[in-house]
């Protein structure tokens, strides 16, 4: 299954009613087995999103683990939510934003620098261009283009209004078009 298909499956689970969330061969609400099931489903996707915002695999792993630690601590409550996956994703994004902000405060010189060794088939130009964006725009771009979420969900995860999310995306696209030498033909709906 492709990662896109997997993400689609998550989102179907997230949108479903509480009883439907755990109906796919999963035991009753709130158990350790349910947590493990959600972990296996969501951890890789959340970590990829975090990586695309912070551009550091080790840090992405730490941040994602910390988000799931929080999920485990609040599991009794969060497991009753309609979309526990969205909850942990929101926590992970928030932790990532903090980490990016700390990095930028620590050293303005590192701002535009990518790690010396980029593993695998990364699109170095796209990553560098995204890295030049402010952190809110970064997160909006990753949620919109990578996770393929509608603006309303982007806003929900980023804890801002739809209009604000739309502004972040609009500005990010304009800047990315300039950096990548592409023409921004389409616009954010």
């Amino acid at each position, binding site marked *: 299954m492709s*990662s*896109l298909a997997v993400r689609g499956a998550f989102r179907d689970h997230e949108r479903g009613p509480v009883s439907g969330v755990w109906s796919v061969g999963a035991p009753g609400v709130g158990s350790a087995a349910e947590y*493990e099931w959600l*972990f*296996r489903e969501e*951890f*890789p996707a959340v*970590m*990829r*999103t975090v*990586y*695309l915002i912070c551009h550091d*695999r080790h840090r*992405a*792993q730490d941040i*994602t*683990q*910390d988000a*799931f*630690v929080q999920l*485990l*601590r609040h599991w009794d409550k969060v497991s009753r939510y309609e979309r526990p996956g969205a909850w942990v994703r929101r926590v992970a994004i928030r932790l990532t934003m903090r980490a990016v902000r700390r990095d930028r405060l620590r050293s303005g010189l590192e701002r535009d620098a990518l790690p010396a060794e*980029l*593993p*695998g*088939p*990364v*699109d170095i*130009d*796209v*990553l560098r261009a*995204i890295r030049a964006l402010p952190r809110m725009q970064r997160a909006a*771009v*990753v949620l919109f*283009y*990578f996770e*393929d979420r509608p603006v309303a969900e982007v806003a929900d995860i980023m804890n801002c209004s739809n209009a604000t999310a739309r502004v972040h995306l609009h500005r990010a*696209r304009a800047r*990315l*078009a300039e950096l*990548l030498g*592409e*023409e*921004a*033909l*389409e616009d954010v709906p």
Partner: protein
Amino acid sequence: MSLDRRLRDGLQRSSSVVDPDVPESLSIVRRKARRLVVRQRVGQVTFAALAVAALFLAGPRILDVVRSLRPVRPASPGPAVSTAIAGTYTTEVPAGSSVVRDNHLAGRWTMHLAPNGVVTVTAPPSFTGVLTGVSYQVAGSQLRIDLFLQDICGGAPPGAYQWRRAGDSLTFTVVNDSCAARVAVLTSGTWTSSG
């Protein structure tokens, strides 16, 4: 290629370098959560221990401060009494003097001196004054009492009397009392213990 397409493809390709070891990550998350819980519990126990220690060390001082904030009772008849005089006594006040007649004091009086300094007085039916809130204080052989303080002895300080008990009998001798009605009731005759 459009910008949107390039972003989608670029992000998708770049994300493929992230392939976490999920079971290993799960065990790490569980360990971290356990450590966090232990740290929290240690923190709570430490806080509770510090709170108890602080209360133990500062408690007496806090009590002193609280006590110092309470209003101080005036040095008048109060709860410090001698149990030697506590009991119920009765006397008959004769209608001889003008102060007795004017204040309708003649008749049988009963006085219960409680160990806590409270005096309960029962007057003859002819007396219509206030008899509540009466208290007394004993220091050695001297007794101070504020009987009639709320009406016919209003404005006068509590009266001071020498008391003497012999068997069932209790007698008062005035030491200092500017209220004639009180002197008349307390010293007109001998008080007899009735319980």
